[in-house]
């Protein structure tokens, strides 16, 4: 591999926490944070990937997330959150898009973030007033 390629990959720094490794603290990752071990603290990253053995807790803010392990406390995903069948999220969750596979566990307070550049999502139905129309 040439140095250029190494530099290209390194331009978006990545973090990998392997199985059996525990890390506590505040971490900012320009690229992808992959957790198969345990992380506790504040994490900002472009992408969060939590493996089946991974456990993440604290204040987590990312662009996209794919969860196969466990995430607790506060999770903010500005773009797409994918919860796989083995994954579990508990706490306060904010997302723009979400996909939950059957078997995935989700509990806590869930809110949707406004999608940047997208038309506002219609969450209020155009409802007939049943009581008024019936009387």
């Amino acid at each position, binding site marked *: 591999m040439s140095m250029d390629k190494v530099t290209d990959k390194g331009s978006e720094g990545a973090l990998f926490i392997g199985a059996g490794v525990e890390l506590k603290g505040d971490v900012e990752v320009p690229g992808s944070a992959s957790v198969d071990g345990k992380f506790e603290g504040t994490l900002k990253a472009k992408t969060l990937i939590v493996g089946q053995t991974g456990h993440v807790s604290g204040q987590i803010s990312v662009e996209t997330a794919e969860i196969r392990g466990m995430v607790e406390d506060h999770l903010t995903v500005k773009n797409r959150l994918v919860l796989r069948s083995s994954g579990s999220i508990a706490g306060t969750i904010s997302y723009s898009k979400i*996909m939950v596979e059957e078997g995935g566990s*989700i509990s806590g307070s*869930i809110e949707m973030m406004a999608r940047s550049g997208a038309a506002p999502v219609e969450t209020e139905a155009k409802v007939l007033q049943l009581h008024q129309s019936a009387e």
Partner: protein
Amino acid sequence: MSRREAGMKLDFSTLRVPENEEEVEAFDWKAFPPAIANRKSNFFLIVDAATGLSGKLVTWTTFVHGQVEGLIFAEHVTVEESGFVKGLIFCRTLTVLGMVQADVICDTLHVRGQGVLTGVVKHKQVKIEGEGLVTGKFARRGSGIGGRAALAQG
């Protein structure tokens, strides 16, 4: 048992939504009167897009294309793309393709297509796909909270 006999013998008067987690977990869907009526048949209710209901809807399987405000008490509930439900849903399976602004107690929740669900949800299993959106408070059943009283507490 004929449909007429089944309909005549069913007693809905004592049917009520479970009030607490023990009652939810103990609820026997096999003894659910509409389910009994469906042992030999496949009755279902369609609330069409031109229909609005307000009150308590008890049935075995329902497909909601229109609007329901109040309680839906059914084994299987599908809120179709044009459907809107506001209130409380107690069921085994809930599929949302339309809009639900309700508190939900169910075994399985499936949000599909552009389905939108807002409320307090007690579930055993959840699946969200497509452009489905959910907001509110979610809790897995069996985690120490559940039932209508728990929904009221938020």
